[in-house]
């Protein structure tokens, strides 16, 4: 393969004293006899006590680098060059016994999915004790150590947790347990592979707080892998940006995030809505092209096919490491030209919201029957959508966001008593009973396009079926309409005869959007439409959605966990908790000024790419079960402003605290504007 030049020299330090030093690591997976390169000369070092982050999109090799550090690699992985030094010893050449010792007492790991990472058949206690038995403790010692380990990760009731099985604990609690296990051997190096991916923002914040605290306490070096740039920004001292198996830029985290010097880093950071960017400001930056498939041979500069600066030099020579200062370097031939990469022009469209109400929900509830008892998943929701408006819906998982969407669409028929009106006419609660016009008027874009598109149908068939079902157009006209739709989604005609699995994630989502727009819908529910996509693809989809809305005057119900995205796209935001809307306001009012204590806590939990770290308001405990909601205000059990004797007794009404701004809270605006006192360490408690 391509030869990499001499390893970067900027601020190297002595590899022998580093907690981890990876030098020029080249690694390939052999698939059917053909080696496919995954890492193309990765070099980095982490000093004791330092936190180093690796960021990049899927397939860039960041997780492979992490697992390589502990030499946990699939059978078909081959290390083709370079070495890995941990504790001064070469991991690639270790005996199995040494490797086990390395894993038990020098370096340990925290994984992406804590639920899967624990053995479902064994009690927590046995699994934690095992870590201490390995390092030579007796049974009794291990028992005591396990208890202490759980206390160390701030679990309030270690004895009860030790006695449980993994499926009886929440993801956040399990991640604490995994961290406790990782710390058992007092490691010098802690590798965290997407440790908070899949957890709610509030839980994520707690886990990150915990890791931060432990880091100060143990002085362990940290290698953090995350695709979420905010997590890396708030956690790491230094950061490496990976693309296609190579680190393209490395430096002090703040510097890289504020003054990136590689075209890829710049693209990545510009593709996410930062610094409070709104759709009315400008389009999101998109990176042209697609992520290279894992293992495809790439010549010279790995980014050359997508780089606006690329020229013949980039195609013929591997870019050198160009130091910017002592700690910051980039791998680019054209450092002096990176300034040429422009942000998109300011938006010219005005994205006006109409005054006419398209859809109105009044007192809509949804109760599910589960094992003979009623579970209120949605409680008396009032919500209106204006023409061309985007209503953002946020809240933790289990708050009822998806239930609201599905009830509105009639997938789950709403309970008796509520009313859904479309353009002034009441619609039936179940989709199967609705009139053709109501069906046409409401469509949905799903989170996962793989699930949303019938994999045996061609794109043309998918679109044509929707066109014929949702409009009066038939035959040849329908074919023409399909092609028109595809064009509007920037799908090329040849995509029409493909099946979904031949398309990339972004293209699939475009097909799904085209399908939703086939019948000129009045309102489209977007349920996390970009959360399964990489950042660079997400930007293009968000731009597309914004433009479609402006052209078609469609209303959106936009469900997301990504605060940056909702701030960019939404005109108004509704905050949900346990099936109730706790706050409803214009986007600007949500992010500035007074808001509901839950909103306050939720927003403060989000790790920001911009690093404006504010004091976090912790949410105590876990989200209660909707089957057994707390009395009074459902949020009082976790509220940092709860008033004793009031909040647990009476459920507050929705009150207007400003123009188009209402909250469901007993507190007055004055009370809410007082800063809160943040208590010290928060302990994790069991849900029941």
């Amino acid at each position, binding site marked *: 393969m391509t030869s990499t030049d001499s390893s970067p020299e900027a601020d190297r330090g002595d590899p022998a004293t580093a907690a981890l030093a990876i030098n020029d690591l080249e690694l390939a997976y052999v698939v059917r006899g053909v080696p496919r390169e995954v890492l193309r000369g990765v070099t980095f070092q982490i000093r004791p006590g330092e936190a180093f982050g690796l960021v990049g999109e899927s397939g860039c090799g960041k997780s492979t680098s992490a697992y390589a550090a502990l030499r*946990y690699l699939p059978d078909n992985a081959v290390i083709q060059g370079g070495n890995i030094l941990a504790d001064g010893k070469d991991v690639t050449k270790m005996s199995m016994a040494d490797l086990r010792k390395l*894993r038990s007492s020098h370096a340990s790991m925290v994984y992406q999915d804590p639920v*899967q990472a624990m053995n479902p058949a064994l009690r927590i206690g046995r699994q934690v004790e*095992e870590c201490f038995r*390995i390092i030579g403790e007796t049974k009794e010692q291990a028992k005591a150590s396990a208890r202490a380990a759980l206390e160390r990760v701030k679990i309030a009731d270690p004895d009860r947790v030790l006695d449980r099985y993994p499926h009886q604990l929440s993801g956040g609690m399990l991640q604490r347990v995994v961290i406790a296990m990782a710390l058992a051997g007092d490691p010098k190096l802690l590798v965290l592979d997407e440790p908070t991916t899949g957890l709610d923002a509030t839980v994520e914040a707690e886990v990150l707080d915990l890791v931060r605290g432990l880091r100060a306490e143990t002085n362990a070096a940290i290698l953090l892998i995350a695709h979420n740039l905010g997590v890396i920004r708030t956690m790491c001292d230094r950061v490496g940006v990976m693309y296609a198996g190579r680190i393209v830029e490395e430096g002090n985290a703040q510097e890289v995030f504020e003054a990136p010097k590689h075209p890829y880093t710049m693209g990545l950071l510009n593709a996410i809505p930062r610094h409070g960017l709104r759709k009315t400001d400008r389009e999101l930056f998109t990176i042209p092209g697609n992520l290279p498939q894992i293992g495809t041979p790439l010549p010279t500069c790995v980014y050359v096919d997508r780089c606006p600066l690329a020229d013949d030099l980039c195609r013929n020579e591997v870019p050198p490491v160009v130091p910017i200062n002592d700690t910051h370097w980039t791998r680019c031939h054209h450092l002096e030209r990176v300034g040429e990469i422009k942000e998109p022009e300011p938006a010219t469209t005005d994205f006006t919201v109409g005054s006419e109400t398209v859809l109105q929900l009044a007192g809509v509830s949804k109760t599910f029957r589960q094992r003979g008892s009623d579970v209120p998943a949605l409680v008396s929701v009032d919500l209106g959508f204006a023409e061309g408006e985007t209503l953002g819906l946020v809240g933790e998982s289990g708050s009822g966001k998806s239930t609201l969407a599905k009830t509105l669409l009639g997938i789950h028929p709403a309970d008796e008593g509520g009313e859904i009106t479309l353009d002034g006419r009441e619609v039936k609660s179940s989709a199967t009973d609705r009139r053709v016009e109501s069906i046409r008027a409401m469509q949905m874009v799903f989170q996962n396009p793989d699930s949303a598109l019938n994999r045996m149908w061609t794109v043309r068939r998918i679109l044509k079926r929707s066109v014929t079902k949702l409009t009066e157009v038939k035959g040849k006209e329908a074919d023409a309409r399909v092609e028109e739709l595809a064009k509007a989604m920037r799908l090329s005609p040849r995509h029409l005869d493909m099946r979904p699995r031949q398309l990339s994630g972004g293209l699939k989502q475009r097909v799904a959007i085209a399908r939703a727009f086939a019948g000129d819908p009045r309102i489209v529910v977007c349920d996390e439409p970009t959360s399964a996509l990489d950042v660079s693809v997400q930007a293009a989809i968000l731009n597309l959605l914004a433009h479609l809305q402006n052209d078609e005057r469609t209303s959106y119900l936009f469900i997301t966990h990504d605060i940056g995205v909702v701030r960019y796209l939404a005109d108004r935001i509704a905050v949900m908790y346990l099936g109730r809307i706790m706050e409803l306001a214009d986007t600007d009012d949500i992010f500035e000024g007074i808001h509901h204590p839950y909103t306050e806590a939720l927003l403060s939990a989000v790790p920001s790419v911009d690093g404006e770290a504010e004091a976090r308001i912790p949410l105590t405990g876990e989200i209660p079960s909707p089957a057994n909601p707390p009395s009074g205000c459902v949020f009082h059990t976790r509220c940092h402003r709860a008033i004793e004797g009031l909040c647990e007794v009476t459920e507050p009404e929705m009150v207007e605290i400003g123009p188009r701004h209402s909250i469901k809270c007993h507190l007055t605006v004055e009370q809410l504007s007082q800063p809160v006192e943040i208590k010290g360490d928060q302990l994790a408690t069991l849900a029941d």
Partner: protein
Amino acid sequence: MLRFAVRRALLAIITLLILVAIIFMLTRVFPSDPARQLAGPFAPQERVDAIAAANGFNDPLTTQFGRLLKSVVTFDYGDSFSSPGESVISLVVPALKKSAQLVFFALFLTLPIAIIGGIIAARKKDTLLDRLIVTLGLASASIPEFVSGVLLQYILGVRLGWFPAISNVPDNAGILTTLDYLVLPALSILIVYFGYIARITRAGTIAALEADYTRTAFMKGLTTSQVMRKHVLRNSLQPTVAVTGTQIGYLFGGLVGLEIVFNYPGLGRLTFTAATKQDFPLLTACVITVAIIFMITTLLADLIIAWMNPRARLNLGE
């Protein structure tokens, strides 16, 4: 756990009830004239009428069904048609004992070989050895029991003379002698069930080896054998237990041919006799006995799984 067991047992009883209804329909409802069928086409009408009266074939169907249910509960199926004067149950019980001996012996031979074979195949996934075990399992499971019985009878019994070719165990045989007579039919069972069990064990073990918790165990610094013992097997053998539970029940189907070949006086041969002699009370009793065995073994398997994996208890109750 108790709640799980009770709910699971209740489900089994419902299933059994439906099965009894199916059998009732097959033997009493669908045949237009069961008495005529019993008497034979050339019997005089008086005899047919007598049979119908004696067996209550003229009673309303609900009464007849009630009677059958009562038989199932009390384990009293009346007298056999083909061996007059003998109660059905006095024929079924000794035959069941014989079959149970054979089945236990066969499982004793099959389970260790098949489970170890499956684990080895999983550990050596995609190697020649794995492919050999998998293909061997597939091929052996394809052969009907009576076919492998005939082959073994000839090769090991007649040609090589290693084991008795006919399993007519002497009345007062000791345990070793009995087992000697049972080797060939047990091996025939092994041939069929080795494949099923080895393949399911392999699949379960591969899934467990690829699971995240196995990765966690390796990353703790455990040795491979510790990981296998403490983490993998407990999870990987669950499908094996489930399949073994159902296959024990199905095994009694294969016994029919096998016991004929080896002339072994078990439940299978009794079922065959009952069928050829149109002895419906006996046939019904045999079939329901097998169904009850199936219910019990699958119930046990589910309980073992629930004990092995607490998460499985979630499906029913808890």
